[in-house]
Each structure stands twice: as structure tokens, then as C-alpha cells.
């Protein structure tokens, strides 16, 4: 088991003919992902070729789904067109949309989120590294990789990893792998102020997943999603959690790279988040180098 995706999940890529989308579609194929279709308006009928793989490209998401049975979509569409791409996938009835695109205007995401209410589609991101459920092959291949994370750092296992940022997630994943453990699923929920899936949403999924034994939750300054998740975990989470929060030294009022990483009006500080997480019984690491040890401490290994 895993959450959100597994080795059987059929994936399509919106924006597969772009440089960035194409490069990562290729890496996902190498990883063993069941990448079955691409979508680029106006390029239907072509093929996306990578090594021995030949992936058909369609004009619309609806066509791609009907022809290939894809149930998940990765979005690599440039920011001005990304909101529309997400909504196309939602309207076509995709189960899972993973929006990798960085730089989507907040107003666009606000409307997308409102329109998505009541739909069956779950959105991860935007501005996120995506999802990896490691496989059992060499270098964890044979699993499902949607997005831009490096596949080889993963290992099949029982630790659920959840984070807003990319490289910080890779650090945590790498440490878990180096310690000889592995991951059930790794989810990057993205660094934007408005996103589709929150820390709390993913925490609940890991809590219900029989394969996940322990959880790493990584957050950063801005908003109150980590506090919300900690409050829930305090009462309901059955599994040990290790945590880390980035941005303790960030000056207030400045956006630290991620659109959502900002302390404003005294809200969203690292201190408040760490406190809420510790209060919920999580073991919070002081630096990213300590995430692996925090996991072992929380897990009692």
C-alpha cells in the first residue's frame, strides 16, 4: 500500500512537449511510472518518444483519459495557462492532479480552488516537487513518480514524507534511505499560499495507510497549515511523527523564495509552528541534518 498513487496508477502529462515537462516525463518513464499519455493542445496525434517508449499525445485531457484510462495528471504548463489546465483535468474527471508549475497567480488559484469544491478530483500543489511512491526495483524503480523529484534517492519502505519544499524533502528522503529505511510515499504539497492539499490532508492519508509506520512532516514559515495539522495529530494520529520547520531566521514581511513563505503581522512564525508540533508529541529537528535522527527518536528505533 501507499497513498495517492502506486505502480499501477496510469499517468498523463499536460505540457509533455515542453522542455521541462518532456525532460521529467522521460525521467518518470525511466523510473517505471505507467506514463500512458501526454496532452498538448494542437499537437494531438504526435508521439512523445523517449528511449524505447512511445507515448501518444492528445489535444485534450478528456481524449487522453478515454483512450488510455489515465487517472492522474501532472501539470507542466506555463503559469499563465496553468489554472486552465488544472480545470480542464478537473472537468475531465481525473482523480488526481499534481501541479508542478511555479508562479501561478494567487487569484487564479483562488478561483480554481472554489470551482473544484464538490468535484472528485484531488489537487496537489501547485509549485510542488510532486509525488513518489518508490518501487521495488534497483534504485527504487518500478514505482510511480509524478513530478520532478529525483527517483534514485528513494527506497521502498514504511516512512511517509510530507513537505512544502523540494530540496528539503530530498534531504529527508535521502537520510531515511541512508539509515536503511524507506518510504511508503513522498508528497510535496508546494510552497504557494493557496494549494490544493494541505499538511493535514496528507497526514490523515498517512494515518489511514496500513503500510505507513512513521511520518516526517516538513514545513516552513507562513500561514498556519502546520499548526492545524499538529492540532489534529495531537488527538488523532496513531503514528510517530518527526518534523522540521524552515525559516526561523527569515525577516518578517519578506517572501523567502516561495510565494507562501512569509511572516506577516506576527503570524506564520517558525517558533509558533515548532511549538505546536512539539506540543502534539512530534520530535522536531533543529537543522535538516537532524531529521533522520528525529525520525529514529520518534519511532523508537
Amino acid at each position, binding site marked *: 500500500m501507499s497513498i495517492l498513487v502506486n505502480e499501477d496508477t496510469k499517468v498523463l502529462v499536460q505540457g509533455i512537449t515542453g522542455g521541462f515537462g518532456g525532460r521529467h516525463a522521460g*525521467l518518470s518513464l525511466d523510473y517505471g511510472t505507467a506514463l500512458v499519455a501526454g496532452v498538448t493542445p494542437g499537437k494531438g496525434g504526435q508521439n512523445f518518444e523517449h528511449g524505447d517508449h512511445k507515448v501518444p499525445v492528445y489535444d485534450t485531457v478528456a481524449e487522453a483519459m478515454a483512450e488510455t484510462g489515465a487517472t492522474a495528471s501532472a501539470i507542466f504548463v506555463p503559469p499563465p495557462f496553468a489554472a486552465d489546465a488544472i480545470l480542464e483535468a478537473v472537468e475531465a474527471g481525473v482523480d488526481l492532479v499534481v501541479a508542478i508549475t511555479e508562479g501561478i497567480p494567487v487569484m487564479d488559484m483562488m478561483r480554481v480552488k*472554489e470551482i473544484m469544491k464538490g468535484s472528485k478530483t484531488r489537487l496537489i500543489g501547485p509549485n510542488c516537487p510532486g509525488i513518489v511512491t518508490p518501487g521495488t526495483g534497483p534504485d527504487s524503480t518500478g514505482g510511480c513518480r509524478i513530478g520532478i523529484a529525483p527517483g534514485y*534517492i528513494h527506497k521502498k519502505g514504511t516512512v511517509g514524507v510530507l513537505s512544502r*519544499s523540494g530540496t528539503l524533502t530530498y534531504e529527508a528522503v535521502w537520510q531515511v534511505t541512508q539509515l536503511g529505511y524507506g518510504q511508503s510515499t513522498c508528497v510535496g504539497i508546494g510552497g504557494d499560499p493557496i494549494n490544493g492539499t494541505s499538511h493535514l490532508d496528507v497526514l490523515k492519508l498517512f494515518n489511514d495507510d496500513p503500510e505507513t509506520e512513521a511520518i516526517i512532516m516538513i514545513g516552513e514559515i507562513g500561514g498556519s497549515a502546520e499548526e492545524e495539522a499538529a492540532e489534529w495529530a495531537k488527538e488523532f494520529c496513531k503514528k510517530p511523527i518527526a518534523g522540521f520547520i524552515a525559516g526561523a531566521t527569515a525577516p518578517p514581511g519578506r517572501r523567502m523564495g516561495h510565494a507562501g513563505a512569509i511572516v506577516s503581522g506576527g503570524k506564520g512564525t517558525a517558533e509558533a509552528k515548532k511549538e505546536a508540533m512539539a506540543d502534539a508529541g512530534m520530535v522536531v529537528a533543529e537543522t535538516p541534518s537532524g531529521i533522520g535522527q528525529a525520525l529514529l527518536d520518534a519511532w523508537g528505533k
Partner: protein
Amino acid sequence: MNIHEYQAKELFDRFEVPSPRGQMAETAEEALKIAQEINSDLMVVKAQVHAGGRGKGTFKNGFEGGVHLTKSAEDIGSIAGKMIGQTLVTKQTGEEGKLVRKVMVADAVDIKHEYYLAVLMDRETSRPVIVASTEGGMDIEEVAESSPEKILRVFIHPLAGLQAHQVRKLIVGLGLKGPAAKAFGKVLKNLYRLFASLDCDMVEINPLVETPDGEVLALDAKFGFDDNALYRHPEVEAYRDIEEEDPREVAAAEFDLSYIGLDGNIACLVNGAGLAMATMDAIKFSGGDPANFLDVGGGATEAQVKGAFNIIQSDPKVEAILINIFGGIMDCNVIAQGVVAAVKETGLKLPLVVRLEGNNVAAGRETLTASGLAITGADDLADAAKKAVAAV
């Protein structure tokens, strides 16, 4: 991105949010002429810099105060002459101060009451919220702390927009009556239209004043724009005043780097925003002070790394450099080659600690070793931070 007060007034004029009559001047003569046109009993002249605390600031030529009220147009002209071309130091500018190039001359209106009015993007609900209070002219966070019942909030549906009943609710809540109630309703509708049309993440009017004649005017405003949406508002982007920005940040923007200047002495160069923040934290945790936030991004080129390295090295406050790279997809050797190329050009003047991990790390480490440069290697981030702090 910040904008000047006179630019805020231009936006208010465009969206019919009333504000006192006034205009920007670049010379004392222009200021005098504007004051003569306003021709009011009381007028105000304000230095235009991107910093708060102007009223209590001091110019380096000894002239006191970046905001002055006066009754005569001639005084406006002479005061403007003492401000323009001079450097204003306020509690927010730091010792170096800010050069004043422009002033704003405006009518100083009679005030019956000061209100607070803002439209913000609320993260928790993913929708805009209007915040209003009868306690204008003060720090709104203090009001929220001491008398939370005096803060009114109305959430706006993202697709339906501001509704008439919501406007009425705020009018009643603020106790507005007669012509002022009507005027406030118009201000609110136009302010929300401005917020939504220009992709703002904040427009705050403090104070919003009611005059004895029942007029409602925006006296001072703060704007926040969504940087990701500026591409569809070129007229707003044109308001950017790079003279007001940190020159290190301007240089970084040219290389498409995400950089924020800080006051410490240990510079860092990192890939990924989360890891870059965590690197700053690790420096602090080891007893040092970070000089900057710098994210070279997930797909940095050798030229970008070189550019980043040069910006760091030219900062006089910096005494040591920490490079922290987790190469997921990114090739560690590209980073290593960028660093070596930059150092070959400028020379290595400062202690340099490098922590490389991930994709092609062996080649990256080899490139650094083969360069013969005095680079201190590190096992992980905590180790790197300790070594960088020890090197200062």
C-alpha cells in the same frame, strides 16, 4: 514590490477611490506650483521613499522631518527644496538613509474621524477578506490585540465578488450615517475592484478619513502585489523603482536568482527555497549570522552560480561563504564548475565551506579538489554551518 505614495494615489484616481488633492514634484519649483494650484488653508509635503517613519526622520543636511504641514505655498516650495536631493534617515532606512528624489504635495484635509480599511488575501479561507475598524490611524495589530471586537471582517466569495449586503454590514458596523455612509460604500466597492483587477495581495488604507463635509478619503495606503501576476499588469510593474531596492537584490534579479539581503556576515548559496531558509537557520543555530537568503533554483546554470558567487563576494559585510547543495536532478558538478569559474575570475578572498550531496557528487567534489582552491569540505549541513561560523 513596493510603490510610492504618489503612485498609490494614481491607482486610487484610476479606480475612483477618493484621496486628497495632490501631486508629485521633482523640483522645488514644481512643488510650489502644485501648492499654488491646491491653494488650501493647510497643505502637506512628504518625502517619497520606500520606508516608514518619515515624519520623525532626519535629513543628513540636518533638516528635521520628512513630512511637513504648512499654510503657505511658498513654504511648501522652500521645504521641498530642503528635501529633494538630500538623504533621509528614518528608523526603517538604517544609518545610510535614502536619497529623496521626489516629494508629494497634497491638501491637508480636516478630519472628523479616522477609520481603518483593508482588503487582504486570506490564506486560511483561500478568499479575500475586508478588514475594517473605527480605530483608524493606529497600529491595527495593536487594536486587534487590545480590542478585537473593534475589528470587522467580511469574507468575499471568489467567484461572486463583493455583495451589497456586505457593504451595508460594514457601514452599520462602523456606525457611518448620511453622506459619509454613501461615500464609504463607494470607496469600498471601488477599492475591492482595484484589489481584484490588479492582482493585489493587500491594499491597506490607514487612515481612511471622514471629513466634516461627509467626504471619505484615503489618506495613507500600503499596497502589496502578487509578483506572479505582474506579467498581466505592465503599468504596475512600471512603478518599480530600483533606486529604492537593495542593489544586491537588483543584481541578483538580473541572473534570475532569488536573493534577499540580510545583516549578518556569513553568506550562503543554496538550491531550493526551503533548503536555503534551513541553511540560514543552521548558521544561526551554530552561533553565526546569515548575510543573505539565496536560492539558485532547481536548474541553475554555471553562469547563474558564477553570478551568485560574485554578488556574495562583493558584499563588504560578508566574512565567510557557505555553499549547500543537494543535487537531486541538478548535477553537483555544474555547481562546482560554476564556483571554480567564479573564483578564477575574482580570486577567493574569503573562507569557503562547501557541502555537496546527491547527483554526480563525486565529480563535483573532484572538480573542487582539482582546482587547488582553499575550500573546506563538510559532511552535512550542520557540519558545514559549524565550519563556516568557526571560519569567521
